[in-house]
């Protein structure tokens, strides 16, 4: 059901984009007004979500410890899985953000001969990493449209990415990687029954939307060539706040743009915000030094306790009978 609705939503989006592509008036909207609106939505939405999370205090220091804590000096500690201070936390977060450390642990439980066995299951980690890194490289590569002259590191990145020089224009490795990664993530969601069971509209839609962006990008590069000079002029126009409606850019480009802007607007209001949220996760970004350094809770309030005096009041006679010392005779 959720899958079906997502597919329909993407289809409608594509048709709308086509409509825009064939209408001059709407093209103005798409190339001059929507870019700023989408970017503003993305930026403001992103900041709003982060601020809203950061606004809530962290009353307790609750890291999930995945390695030996720092205790006695002769016991080997695991600073990356159970960090005892800031450097360890930074290392742990870096491993998590850049290498998906936790996902690397993934196993698959199966019943075999009436016993659960835990097989290695690194596919999700591998394709997840593949997708995220290639997306990142592709975003960076696109900076060449926004910067003039093109910074050397961007050309360098593109050169490395197209190192094998397959086809003309060169096929980027990151393009293959992102297609592979996305297809895996999508098919997995559709094929594995447990995943299909837990998937929501947002899960399918986000993947399909990015697939739409990637697909139209590839179409443009390899099948329906676009006037790159025009694209660059358009992009530079946005950056310099003097956008112009380009003439003669291919229709696919408009669909590509549509998907990108929808993605930008969709990002902050969807699960894609995990990109920002991961940095704030209290089970990962705090040191396991609770007994060494006191953590403060800003709303720590007094509670009703049962004092020793109340306790002794109730049990004094029994304590005396048992020859236990009492404070008040």
């Amino acid at each position, binding site marked *: 059901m959720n899958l079906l609705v997502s597919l329909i939503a993407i289809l409608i989006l594509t048709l709308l984009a086509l409509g825009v592509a064939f209408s001059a008036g709407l093209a103005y909207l798409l190339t001059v007004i929507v870019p700023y609106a989408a970017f503003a939505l993305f930026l403001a939405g992103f900041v709003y979500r982060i601020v809203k999370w950061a606004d809530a205090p962290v009353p307790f220091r609750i890291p999930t410890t995945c390695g030996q804590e720092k205790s*006695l000096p002769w016991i080997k500690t695991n600073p990356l899985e159970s960090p005892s201070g800031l450097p360890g936390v930074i290392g742990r977060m870096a491993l998590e953000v850049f290498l998906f450390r*936790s*996902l690397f642990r993934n196993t698959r439980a199966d019943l075999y001969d009436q016993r659960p066995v835990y097989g290695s299951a690194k596919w999700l980690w591998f394709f997840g990493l593949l997708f995220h890194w290639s997306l990142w490289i592709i975003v960076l590569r696109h900076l060449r449209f926004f910067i003039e002259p093109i910074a050397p590191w961007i050309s360098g990145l593109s050169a490395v990415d197209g190192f094998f020089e397959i086809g003309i224009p060169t096929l980027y490795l990151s393009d293959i990687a992102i297609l592979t990664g996305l297809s895996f993530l999508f098919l997995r969601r559709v094929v594995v029954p447990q995943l299909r069971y837990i998937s929501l509209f947002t899960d399918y839609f986000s993947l399909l939307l990015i697939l739409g962006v990637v697909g139209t990008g590839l179409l443009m590069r390899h099948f329906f060539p676009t006037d790159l000079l025009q694209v660059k002029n358009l992009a530079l126009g946005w950056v310099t706040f003097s956008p112009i409606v380009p003439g003669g850019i291919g229709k696919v480009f408009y669909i590509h743009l549509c998907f990108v802007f929808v993605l930008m607007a969709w990002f902050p209001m969807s699960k894609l*915000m995990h990109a920002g949220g991961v940095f704030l*996760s209290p089970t990962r970004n705090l040191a396991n030094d609770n007994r060494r350094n006191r953590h403060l809770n800003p709303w720590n309030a007094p509670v009703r306790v*049962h004092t020793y005096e109340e306790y002794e009041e109730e049990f004094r006679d029994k304590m005396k009978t048992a020859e236990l010392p009492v404070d008040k005779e």
Partner: protein
Amino acid sequence: MSSAKTPKPDELIQIRYEPPETPWMDIPVDFRPGTWSYSGTAKNLVVLDLPNPRAWQPYDEDWKLPENWQQIILEGMRERLEKYRSFRLFMDICVRCGACADKCHFYIGSGDPKNMPVLRAELLRSVYRRYFTESGKRFGRLAGARDLTVDVLKEWFYYFYQCTECRRCSVFCPYGIDQAEITMMGRELLNLVGCNINWVVEPAANCFRTGNHLGIQPGGIKDMLEFIADDIEDRTGVRVEVPLNKKGAEILFVAPSGDYFADPGTYTCMGYLMLFHEIGLNYTFSTYASEGGNFGLFMSHEMVKRLNAKIYAEAKRLGVKWILGGECGHMWRVIQQYMDTMNGPADFLAEPVSPITGTRFENARSTKMVHITEFTADLIRSGKLKLDPHRNDHLRITFHDSCNPARAMGLFEEPRYIIRHAARHFYEMPEETIREKTLCCGGGAGLGNDENFEMRMRGGMPRAMAVKHVHEKHGVNRLACICAIDRSTLSSLMDYWVPGVTVMGVHELLANALIMTGEKDRTTDLRGEPLKERTDDETP
């Protein structure tokens, strides 16, 4: 009534993991006997000033909720979203990648999709979206949102009391989303309208009044400890003292009450007493702070604080220098991650230093409470204990990492160090089932009661099967652990899945091996079981 007939192990192991056709939001909860816990009784709710005390049971149609119960829950949610970043974040950032799904022992043992941590969280998230997000308000079910109905509340009750807050899922989650945190919030919300279980509420009420979960009064505690001292004298010929409420002692010792109340915890308690006697520790037990455990953790953060306050208060009253804590799992989650923040600063105590070895426990500099395995490992390392590991030759041991010392402390090496010095036959369970990936006993977080027996056996199945593996491969006959709940729940788990394996605390193992000054010829272990005969070359 929960007149549950527990299935036999070979029936229970027939588990199907394929989810049903019907979407989960359309499947109402089924209170099948053997899979849930009795409600908290009114008497106990009154002791703790908890709302809506009444007579009810989960299988009742009418839960006698307050008239404005929805408003109470939603207001409670709003408050917690503002007070806990963890809660707000974990409601928002899950991508449903499913990595957590088969990491939960209750899912592995039951195949119920709502026991996948991701779906258990969605039970709450769906309501969060409906009332606290724009998309949920507008698009409802399409945005994964649903109304808060009585059926939803019942579902929460069933599944949040089918989570042992073990945090295993959070080890595997790429964002560190901790189902324990979500379950804790879910239970707090349920408590606001008086929906809780007696196995949590009664220990908490007892602890509030008498100082310990079991409701043992001061004289009773003294009797039990004296009785344990008698047993020690019987086995070793040494009479140990039992200091209680002693002002001016150097150290306050706090253990879970299960350790002096029932077997096999009592043997662990014998171990504590023998160790302290042998090294001449100037310490005291307390009857007022006679509980290390804290069932408040299974109810609300406020209750954690209310029950935990006794430990510092008693340390101050008795004028001790620092505090030593016994073998207990969730107790150490509270001490490591909550106590100092809630009831500190403990500036009236001194930084813990071992009076025997002079070692400074710098990792406990602020909280001023040391874990007994840290303390003992340091004693062994410094050569202060005379140990004869041959006395444990009749045991083939494996070690169960208790959830909280593992995933909320990172205490892995100290207990293993003690075991290796106190015994000669130690075998680890498979790697995916120990240390930070350890599997729960299935009865933590207040679920270790009899009416919930089938669910406990299901939840504990993965742990039991890992024990069975080393039982068959290495002849393991003893499961060591550092948790009082484990000692109780693992015992029934072993009887059910792996007959022939019994459970012990690490300090029982240590005390078996401990050579005491003036002891008689030790012919039995602490349980009175005969020691294995030595061959000549093994004479100490």
